[in-house]
């Protein structure tokens, strides 16, 4: 009998491949006595998304920066990179280690799971005393209302990038000169215009793929369609599809347009089928992993790029290596933003970029001091953002930022991806950017935008997480087929099937639960 038990245990071992690791290390640190003690030299590691640079220029810049940091706060900075491949998983996993690998963590409430990580205990609560003592300039520069938006359960977890103008609402960047050739005198102003544009490009420029999508933009496309055809304002951070929200007229009544706006979705499905038939993307778009659409756009192999305004500001500028502008002096890049038809544009949440301190950090005080310098000290700021003056950047007569003649992209470029505390007070405008077009666009946005209304809403999803997971999965599976016109049967059938699946997965219950939490917060 004993033998049998042993054998059974052995068999269990063979099949048990459980991944159960993780330490129960507690990194809880309270504010402590708030004295500035910099007697010991420490290393502060800052974690960011992005590929690790290999040309050595970043290290050179850091050496310069560390001279200043050592002098001022007796600390040095190191950068920990999370490569873009599966970045969200690696990012969360690195935070879950909780072994003090990282001190400062670049994060975001809408694209980097800031709130789930705060809830999971990965971030340190930043008490007011701590902020006042160790990051006084940051504390002063952020308004009390903005600090409110960085709180969860009454504790501050994030230091927001709230003084930096940028727009990350999505849309399509396209060749304005080609759109004009296609008969769209003002450029693309609607989804229907896009159809005309793509059809024209396909017929006139057979070597150009209108848009070499890799099949991942389904969520942006249908989200953009909904924005363009309603007053929908989505709640960030619930799921990747941003499937719940209110309307501009009635912000605090939660609904999901994916359930209610059936006719609109059917129309979307039909138009995407048309795009697929035109040949806007490759036939096997859903398995296309080899495309590099943005780079291809710069050299004229494709005719559109679906991404946000910030990316467009780059694409519309005549920078080195952007050969479309060299080859064709008439080339221009326009931007059709989602919501253009209905004037539905929501400004960026201030926690689209923010810095947090890891709960496992051994030197949270010093980390805050370093961040305060990076964000507010002009010398540190320029080093971490632009590099060494005279090497990576310089100023022209008008005080704008230019690249020195000696600058070589391969050997001199730095990667710090410091998107968590940029500061317009210290920014130097980039002379290579097409500011005429960009300022015009920003002015247009400023006229119609509304501020992100749900900044203070941190949903409690424990009870509905299972449903949300399943809903996200359904959304992904159906929207990939719908948004790339790959569905079988009619548009009406596939939308009905999609909505039935959503209902079966409990989308109505999730909406009701969110409404309950909204009522508790806003009423």
């Amino acid at each position, binding site marked *: 009998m004993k033998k049998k038990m042993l054998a059974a245990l052995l068999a269990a*071992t*063979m*099949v048990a491949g459980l991944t159960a690791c993780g330490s129960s290390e507690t990194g*809880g640190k309270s504010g402590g006595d708030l004295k500035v003690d910099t007697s010991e030299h420490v290393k502060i590691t800052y974690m960011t998304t992005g590929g690790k640079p290999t040309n050595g220029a970043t290290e050179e810049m850091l050496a310069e920066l560390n001279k200043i940091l050592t002098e001022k706060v007796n600390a040095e900075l190191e950068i920990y990179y999370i490569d873009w491949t599966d970045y969200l998983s690696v990012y969360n996993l690195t935070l879950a280690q909780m072994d003090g690998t990282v001190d400062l963590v670049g994060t975001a409430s809408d694209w980097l799971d800031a709130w789930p990580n705060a809830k999971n205990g990965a971030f340190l609560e930043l008490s007011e005393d701590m902020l006042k003592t160790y990051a006084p300039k940051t504390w002063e520069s952020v308004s009390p209302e903005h600090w409110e938006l960085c709180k969860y359960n009454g504790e501050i977890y994030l230091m927001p990038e709230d003084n930096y103008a940028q727009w990350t609402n999505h849309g399509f960047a396209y060749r304005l000169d080609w759109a004009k050739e296609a008969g769209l005198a003002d450029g693309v102003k609607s989804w229907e215009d896009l159809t005309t544009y793509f059809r024209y490009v396909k017929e006139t420029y057979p070597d150009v793929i209108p848009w070499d999508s890799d099949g991942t933009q389904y969520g942006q496309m249908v989200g953009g369609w909904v924005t363009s055809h309603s007053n929908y304002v989505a709640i960030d951070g619930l799921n990747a599809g941003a499937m719940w929200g209110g309307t501009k007229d009635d912000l605090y009544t939660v609904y999901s347009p994916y359930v209610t706006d059936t006719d609109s979705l059917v129309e979307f499905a039909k138009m995407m089928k048309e795009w697929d038939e035109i040949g806007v993307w*490759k036939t*096997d778009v*859903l398995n296309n*992993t080899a495309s590099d659409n943005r780079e291809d756009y710069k050299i004229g192999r494709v005719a559109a790029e679906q991404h946000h305004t910030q990316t467009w500001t780059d694409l519309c500028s005549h920078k080195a290596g952007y050969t479309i502008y060299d080859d064709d002096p008439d080339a221009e890049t326009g931007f059709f933003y989602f919501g253009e038809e209905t004037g539905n544009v929501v400004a960026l949440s201030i926690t689209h970029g923010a810095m947090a301190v890891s709960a496992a950090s051994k030197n949270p005080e010093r980390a805050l001091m370093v961040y305060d310098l990076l964000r507010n000290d002009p010398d540190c700021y320029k080093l971490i953002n632009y590099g060494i003056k005279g090497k990576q950047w310089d100023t022209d007569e008008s005080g704008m930022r230019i690249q020195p003649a000696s600058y070589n992209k391969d050997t001199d470029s730095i990667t710090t991806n410091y998107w968590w505390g940029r500061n317009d007070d210290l920014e130097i405008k980039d002379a290579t950017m097409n500011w005429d077009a960009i300022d015009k666009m920003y002015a247009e946005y400023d006229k119609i935008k509304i501020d992100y209304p749900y900044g203070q809403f941190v949903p409690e999803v424990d009870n509905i*997480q299972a449903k949300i997971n399943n809903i996200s999965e359904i959304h992904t599976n159906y929207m990939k087929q719908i948004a790339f016109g*790959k569905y079988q049967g009619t548009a009406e059938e596939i939308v009905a099937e999609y909505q039935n699946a959503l209902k079966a997965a409990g989308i109505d219950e999730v909406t009701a639960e969110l409404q309950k939490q909204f009522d508790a917060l806003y009423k």
Partner: protein
Amino acid sequence: MSRGTKAAALKPQTRKMTFWQKVYKYRVLLLMCLPAILFFLAFSYAPMPGIYVAFVKYNYRDGIFGSKFVGLRNFEFLFTSGKLLELTRNTILYNLAFIILGNVLAIFVAILLNEIRCKWFKKVSQTMMFLPYFISQVLVGVLVYNLLNYDYGFVNSILVNLGLERWGPYSDASVWPVLLVIIHLWQQTGYNSVVYFAAIMGIDAEIIEAARVDGANGWQKIRYIILPGLKPTFVILLLFALGGIVKGNFGLFYNVVGKNPLLYPTTDIIETYVYRACMTDFNFATASAVGLYQSVIGFCTVMVCNFIVKKIDPDYSLF
């Protein structure tokens, strides 16, 4: 070892030895087992308490045992998705096809290799079959895509040049069970056949010699000597493989099929579904719950199969 066995042989056993006496007596054998024992202790038994993570709402700072107990809530998502049956069915059917076809083909290849008399040809063919085993699944995915894609794929270029219709497997779910099995066999057969080839080498040469003297032809030799000789190996490998019957080959499916929902009806297995549903919000607890579900089913499968094998022929059972 020699001293121990000698002593045992000299003094006939009159009373039963205690556990520790046995440990002492077989100490050298145990020492030889030690690396394996340590391996299982460290990587299979030590993490077992961590299964508990499947029943808590995991929080980094409180750790596995400090987090809040939530009972079976982590399993809920698996059952409410309504996909569990389809996923389990796909996983099991694919694994059955892999196990059965894989073993049969491996035995077939091993016998062929055994019959080849030309030494260099035997070596070369064995090596060539072995090589695909070392190709990373990521590369396999790229290879398959470049062979099969609609616009620029190798197969379609040939079809078009022959004046035939293009073939679009990436929008046709029905062809993937066949394709995936072929890809799997291409990768694994060389490796698996080595095991069987070794087993054939282990068959007593005298039996084969005697059969030849008795006038058995080549076919009879295979049918009555080699195949029965391979039976124990086959049964053991089968039982081992059955333990993993609800664990899918994630690398193969994820890289070859990718995230193309058109193909999910026939290609979605538990692993790929869980990856998509849980990786985006990084939920350790749910993922562990799924792991536990798979392990429990695997454990039951092994126990049941072993029981059946034992009923038929106790010599072939694992325990």
